[in-house]
Each structure stands twice: as structure tokens, then as C-alpha cells.
């Protein structure tokens, strides 16, 4: 009747396979061969370990949907983690520490957005530049040293449980829910699709793509700030190299999750699955204790295989 029957209705589930096949295969494989893999303690382990990455990968999905990229996230996370450590050490207040971290993260995000939206610098370049700045600042404020002795409350953020669930998982779930709501159920979310899909459409609708773009990058920076708190809590200290390179892991997770680099074609749940797939792979390999060099290569193979599978299906 309706033409919708003729047009292939785009089922977001259609995109699952790439990541889901890989994730499913990994779980089955490790379930079979890795002792202790399927225990609740270990599965909780995997999820807890994935939280920091997921908190970068979720906003990274939005940024990539705007045909952008944020290479500075790992370095900004490092810097915010140091800020959390330094400020909470100085003030003995975790909240002030978190506030400082979020503030610095948001500031970097806003600068990224400003460089991209207002100055029109390609995102890769702009955020490569701010990556250097954040990394440099991290080294300068810490003089290359770990920052220790922070108040004890900070550490509990990472190690405490809430109703039996580890707090990081709770934070990650809340984050995912918030991002899901934001992307799929708010006007802002629609505009994120439009930023990558058709910026002109926004302009004609009387909206300012520039402001929206800045907002998207600012969200990225802010999340790096919050993740910085988790990182500090995890190490119970700040360290000037702690988060370096995480941005590439985040980008890989987003890509593995089926978000394309073009035209605002993103899938949030895929990102989460991508993050977990990376976590499961590392965890499982640790459990079966393959040579470490195999572990190094396996991440690359995972990325290539997942994207290859996606490519196969999109061509079919």
C-alpha cells in the first residue's frame, strides 16, 4: 500500500552485524577457551574497563557524525585528569576537582569547536593542534611527574558499587542513556544529524550550524573532563601520559560500531558495542595469555575485520 513497503525501510538493526558478529564471535570464542571469562566478576571487569573509553567514544560518535573528528580527546582527558588531581589535592575537595576537570575539558572542547566552526580549520588539523597543546600543558603543570596524595573520596568513584553494580558501570549506563536521549529524542540530536548530513538545511531552518558545532565539540571536551575524574580515581593519582592515544581507540570503536565518516550517518549503540568488543578482546587475550605481540596485532585485526564485514554488507 504505502510506498514505505517498496522503499527498504532503514532498520538500524541492519547495521548490527559488523560489530555484533565480531562481538558475538569473541564472546563465544573466549567463553569456550578462556577459563573464567564467563564469570560475573570477569564480565563486570570488562565493562568497568570499558567505561572510560565509552565516555570518549559516545561524544566522539556525535563529532564524527558532523563529519568532524576530535584527536585531542585523549590528551584533554590526561590534562583534565591532572586538573582533578591537582585541584582536589590542593582543596581536599573532590567536587572542586571535578569542577576544574570539567571546566578545562569544556574549555578545550569549546576551543576545538571554535577553531572548526568559526575559523573553519579542518577538524583533524584543529584537534591535532589542541592535542599538542593539551599534552604540552599536561607536562608543564605536572612537570612530568605523577600527582599523588589526593583525597580518598576520589578513588571511591572508581571502586565503589551502587546496589551491587560498580559505580563506573552506572556512570557509563547513565552516560549512554543521556546520549541516546540526546541524539534520538531531542531537537539538538536532530541537528547533529543535520550538521553532517546537510548544514545548509540548518541554516535555512534559521539555526546556527556554528553554534551547534561548537556545542558538539564542547560536549566532547566536557565528557573528557568527566572521564578525567574516572581516570584519576582509577589511578588514585594524575599522570601526564595516562590518556594519550585513547582518542584513536575511541575513533576506532566508533568506526567499528558502524558510524560512517560521511553525511551524518551514525549509530550510538554500535559505538557502545564497538567499545565492548575491544574490551572483550583484550580481556580474553589476557585470560588465555597469548604472547603480548599477538595482543598488539589483534586490535588492528579486529578493526579491519569489523569494517570489512560492514563493507561486505553495504555492498550486498
Amino acid at each position, binding site marked *: *500500500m*504505502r*510506498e*514505505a513497503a517498496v*522503499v*527498504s*525501510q*532503514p532498520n538500524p538493526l541492519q547495521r548490527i552485524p559488523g560489530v555484533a558478529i565480531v562481538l558475538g564471535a569473541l564472546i563465544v570464542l573466549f567463553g569456550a577457551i578462556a577459563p573464567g571469562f564467563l564469570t560475573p566478576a570477569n564480565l563486570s571487569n570488562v565493562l568497568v574497563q570499558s567505561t572510560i573509553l565509552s565516555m570518549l567514544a559516545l561524544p566522539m560518535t556525535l563529532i564524527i557524525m558532523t563529519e568532524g573528528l576530535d584527536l585531542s580527546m585523549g590528551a584533554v582527558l590526561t590534562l583534565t585528569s591532572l586538573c582533578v588531581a591537582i585541584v582536589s589535592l590542593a582543596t581536599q575537595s573532590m567536587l572542586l576537582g571535578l569542577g576544574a576537570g570539567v571546566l578545562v575539558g569544556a574549555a578545550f572542547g569549546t576551543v576545538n569547536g571554535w577553531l572548526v566552526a568559526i575559523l573553519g580549520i579542518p577538524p583533524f588539523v584543529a584537534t591535532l593542534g589542541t592535542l599538542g597543546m593539551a599534552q604540552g600543558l599536561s607536562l608543564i603543570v605536572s612537570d612530568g611527574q605523577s600527582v599523588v596524595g589526593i583525597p580518598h573520596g576520589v578513588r571511591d568513584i572508581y571502586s565503589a558499587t551502587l546496589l551491587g553494580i560498580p559505580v563506573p558501570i552506572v556512570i557509563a549506563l547513565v552516560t549512554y542513556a543521556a546520549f541516546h*536521549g540526546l541524539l534520538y*529524542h*531531542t*531537537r*539538538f540530536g*536532530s*541537528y547533529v*544529524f*543535520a550538521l553532517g*548530513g*546537510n548544514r*545548509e*538545511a*540548518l*541554516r*535555512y*531552518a*534559521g*539555526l546556527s550550524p556554528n553554534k551547534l558545532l561548537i556545542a558538539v565539540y564542547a560536549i566532547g571536551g566536557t565528557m573528557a573532563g568527566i572521564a578525567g575524574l574516572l581516570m584519576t580515581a582509577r589511578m588514585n593519582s594524575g599522570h601526564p601520559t595516562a590518556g594519550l592515544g585513547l582518542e584513536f581507540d575511541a575513533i576506532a570503536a566508533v568506526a567499528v560500531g558502524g558510524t560512517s565518516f560521511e*553525511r*551524518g*550517518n*551514525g549509530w550510538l549503540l554500535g559505538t557502545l558495542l564497538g567499545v565492548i568488543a575491544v574490551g572483550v578482546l583484550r580481556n580474553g587475550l589476557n585470560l588465555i595469555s597469548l604472547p603480548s605481540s599477538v595482543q598488539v596485532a589483534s586490535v588492528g585485526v579486529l578493526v579491519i575485520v569489523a569494517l570489512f564485514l560492514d563493507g561486505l554488507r553495504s555492498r550486498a
Partner: protein
Amino acid sequence: MNAPGNAAATPLLELRDISKTFPGVKALDDVSFALYAGEVHMLLGENGAGKSSLMKVLCGAYSADAGEFFFEGKKVTIASTADAQKLGIAVIFQEFSLVPYLDIAQNIFLGREPKGRIPGTIDRRRILADARRLLDTIGFDIDPSVIVNTLGVAQQQMVEIAKAISQNARILVMDEPTAALSDRETELLFALIARLKADGVSIVYISHRMAEVFSLGDRITVLRDGRRIDGVRPADVTPDQLVRMMVGRTVDMTYPRNFADKPGEVLLTVKGLTAASGISDINIEVRRGEIVGLCGLVGSGRSEVARAIFGADPVASGEIVFDGKPISGEPDVAARRGIALIPESRKSEGLALLRSVGDNLVVSALRKLFPSGLFDPRSGQRTADGLIRQLRIATPSARQTVGLLSGGNQQKVVIGKWLAAGAKLFIFDEPTRGIDVGAKSEIFALIDRLVAEGAAALMISSEQVEICHVCDRAYVMREGRVAGHLTRNELTEENIVRLGMHHA
């Protein structure tokens, strides 16, 4: 120039002495334009005459360098699209303004989404219901939760229209709305226009199709080289007169050709060609000195035949013999053997828009011009200059960025690159889409000259008149198959339609 109906009426919207200059181009030069309530106002002109620019000024997308706006007689400023929207101006642009991975409803109400209970959220049920109602009024039967990316061009066009209508516009601007529509959808659109007109909506309608000008228009404004030439009523002019106003000279719209009495030897034979892109068992033959038409409805698979022959889409089975030898493989093989494809979408498939005219003109001929493999910019430049002269491409120089040329001239560049490459078979896919009458006749003259010199052409066009005027014979396609063949004598619009219709 009088208002329609009563002479006393003030225009709904009036633009006075608008000028707009782009670097190197004076797009609008002191143009005045008046629009009355409830009229369909046709805006005509050659490619690059400034029609789209004028409409972009009108809707606030471009700011004019000089000029004034009056709305219902009162002076207003239109500095942004928001200003225009407040005045009830809505636009359907030539380039789509849809977001591919949002659904139809979200696209229609982008920026005006009904608010949900939680601040910032969208009331999902209402947006779908509103969209549903709107789509019903324009007679477009589709589920509003379908993602736009999965729609065809025509369906996207309908969504654009729904989007514009949804703004309760008093003024609706349509920039070549039928360029991508099928006949059925065109009829729907015309019915809709009639309904809107009855509701008192004013419509500015830009088109290169003469028939539409006369069947739809209440008044006509003609632009040439950024200047307003005249305003007339359809009843008071003939097509020839209109064309002269647009082009500044007479153009023979019957596109005279020297039909060859005896076609030359066979150049291309396609036997049982089947491809995953949706065509099956295609049998076609093209001889030197011929222009062979390939017609049918939109979506009947004409482009797919062209792409399969050129190697752009993979072939599942069948045989293609070119110049006596079988051919298969990627487009570079076809190109080297002497086949040229002038693709449907010149912007996305035909040109590197940010590169220069010269770069684009020599790109297919590099191997031929520089057999040693060493590239000589000066000699490339000379070749480009020669082609610019030969094809009369209107450009300040070979160094101009090709994306800044008008559509017709861009099309000439796409053809030109294959002239330089010395192609023997030219496959034209909609060579005249979005191109003005002047450029059209020049392009047909060019095709005629090419085949007269021993080349051959396979021409796809949705304008059946053109096929009838210029082709020696034609194949008609239906649902991915060749439905019939028409010789020169049989080649009439009725026959094409009869063969091409579903359930014929």
C-alpha cells in the same frame, strides 16, 4: 506591466534594483521583480542568468549588495532566512536541503519540531501525525518515519515540497522542481500548485521547460546576464519570442540535423547484457554516424545501461563488443578504447568542481596528449584553450574554477574532456538536464558535428521531444529491459510513451 486581476492591487512582494556581485561575476544587475498574491510567476533565463541568485536574495540566503524590499507595500529588510520566513517565504532549492539520515517528518519540521514534555525533546507522536497530514494534502502516500536517505530523487523532491508547504508560506519559490520528477509526480505537483494558487499562495517558478511555462504561468519575468529583460504574460508571447528574450538571439528549437542516409559500420553491439544494477537482457546496436536514443520512464534503467557499457557498474552476463573487439572491465578500459560517458550528474560525477576548467578538460586525455607519461602544463593549457574556443565555453580563462561556471558551460566542459581524448562513442545521460535553450541547441549542434565526423552517440533523455528531434532511431526501456525499438519514422512522443508505460 499590470497586476493580474485588479490593476489596483499592490504587489505582495516587490524587489527593487537588486544588485549582487560575486568575485568576477555580476550575478544581478539592478533587477526589479514584483510578485502578486495568488499568481504563478515564471522566472526564465539562460544558465547563469541569475535566477537562483535572485531567489536566494529574496529568501535571505544571499545578502544583496544594493536594492530594497517591499512587502505589501511596506519597506522591509530581508537579511537572513529567518527574516524571509517571518514574511512567509519558503523555498525549494535546486540543491536539496534534506538531511539524509533523519526521517521524513523530522526533515519537514527541522527547526520547528513540536516540543515534547521534557524540555528539548520532540513530541514524536505529534510530529508524525502532522507530517502524515501534510503528506496527505500533497497526495504523497508514504510513511513519514521513513529515513530520507532511502528515498529516490523524486520522492525527496516531494519531501522538499512538503517541507516548504508546512511553513504555511504565502510565497513559495520553486527552483526547477520538475528536473528530477517523473510524469506522474509532475502531474501531482501541478495539481498541488493549482490548489495552492486557489488558496492565495504566490508561487515563483523557475524552469527551463517551455511547456511548463505556458501551462502553469500567469506571468513571466525574463533575466539575461543578471539583468531583467522583460515581464510578459504567456498569452502575449510565443515560445520563439521568449527564447529570443532569454538568449538575445533566435534559436531553432527543432535542432536541425543532417541525418545520414546510410549509417556507417557497427561500432557498438550489446548482446544479452544483464547487470545487478537492475537491467537484464539488453540488446543494442550503435553505428558510426548515428545518434541513437535511449528512452523510457525515470527509473527504467537507462542510466544503468550506460554505466554498464562504460564499465562503471559490474556486468553479470552478456557481451559488449566495441569497434570489433569485446570489451570488459573498469571505465579506464572503455575510455582507452574510445568510449565516453557524459554522466547524469555533472557536479558529482562529471567534474572536479574545485579544480580549474583546464584541469578538467585535459583529465581524460592525459594519456593521449602525453604518451611519454610526462605532463607539460603549457601544452595542457594550450589544449584547454583550444577546447574552450571550439566549444565556446564562457569562462574568463582556463584557470577559472569550474564550479563557478554556469550549468551549461559545465556540461560543455564534461563533453570537452572527451573530445580531447578522441572518443568514438559518446554516451550522453541527460545531456540537457537543467540547461537553457541556447546551450541546449549548441550542445545538439556539437553532437551532430561529432557524429557527422564519424563518431556515434547513444543519448538518454527524459525530454521525448529532444529524442524525436535529434535521434536517428531509439530504444525504449521499461523496467530494466528494452521494450522496443523505434526507427526514425516511428519516432514520435506517443510511441515512446506507449512502449515505455508500465502495463502497456
